[in-house]
């Protein structure tokens, strides 16, 4: 998991990347859904 935040004129900009290595498709899809749901709350 990598997260960066930097200031902009209007607030901040966020880059959030979760890298997965060698996950089977089903586990990747599940992880993607869970992280996406969590990060929606960051808005």
């Amino acid at each position, binding site marked *: *998991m*990598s*997260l*960066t*935040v*930097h*200031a*902009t*004129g*209007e*607030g*901040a*900009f*966020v*880059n*959030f*990347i*979760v*890298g*997965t*290595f*060698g*996950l089977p498709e089903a*586990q*990747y899809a*599940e*992880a*993607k859904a*869970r*992280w*996406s*749901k*969590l*990060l929606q*709350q*960051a*808005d």
Partner: protein
Amino acid sequence: MSKDKTRPPQTHEIEIDAPPEAVWKAISTGEGLTRWYAEEARVEPRKGGENWISWGEGQEVGKLNLLWEPGRRLTVGDANHETATDWNAIVIDFEIETRGGRTVLKLVQSGLPAGPDWDSMDDGTDIGWEMFLFALKFYVERHAGTPRRTIVRFWASPRPADETFGALRELLGIAADDLRAGARYAATTADGEKIGGEIIAVEPGHLLVATVSSSATRS
């Protein structure tokens, strides 16, 4: 672009516990670049060859290998970088050295225009390269040869950077006291999922790199 219209170069260095050849492969091949940097990548292995990366539709960057010294140095930029007055003026130089038996990757980004309009991009690329170099180190040292798939989200927050970072830390459930490089953490996210791992790098308010183990994934 003339030097008086560009800002000073950014220089980043990272020590990697792997042979120089492994680092070269990670920075100079399309396959290698997708393990720590981009979603898709193509590199034509020669000076003047294509160097193309993408994070998805509309986020493609096509450049050239301005300098190609296998195993040692790779410089990437636009063919017209010297006359460009926008982001096409940016040149990225990777240099691999061996110091005391350790491999060191040095990255210099130059050519970014001067002036306040480019301050945010300067800050963003500065912290972004820090993050990507930790990702490169993590890949080469711990997952070399294993394909990577990512979950990526970029967004603008109306709040200041430190508040945004703090809110994300709380969302992840990581205690402020655990934000130390090398520390182990155990957390419960805002969704109630228990996660844990190792904090690899932290710059409070700006950067967090950590391993994550949960019931769903290890990343």
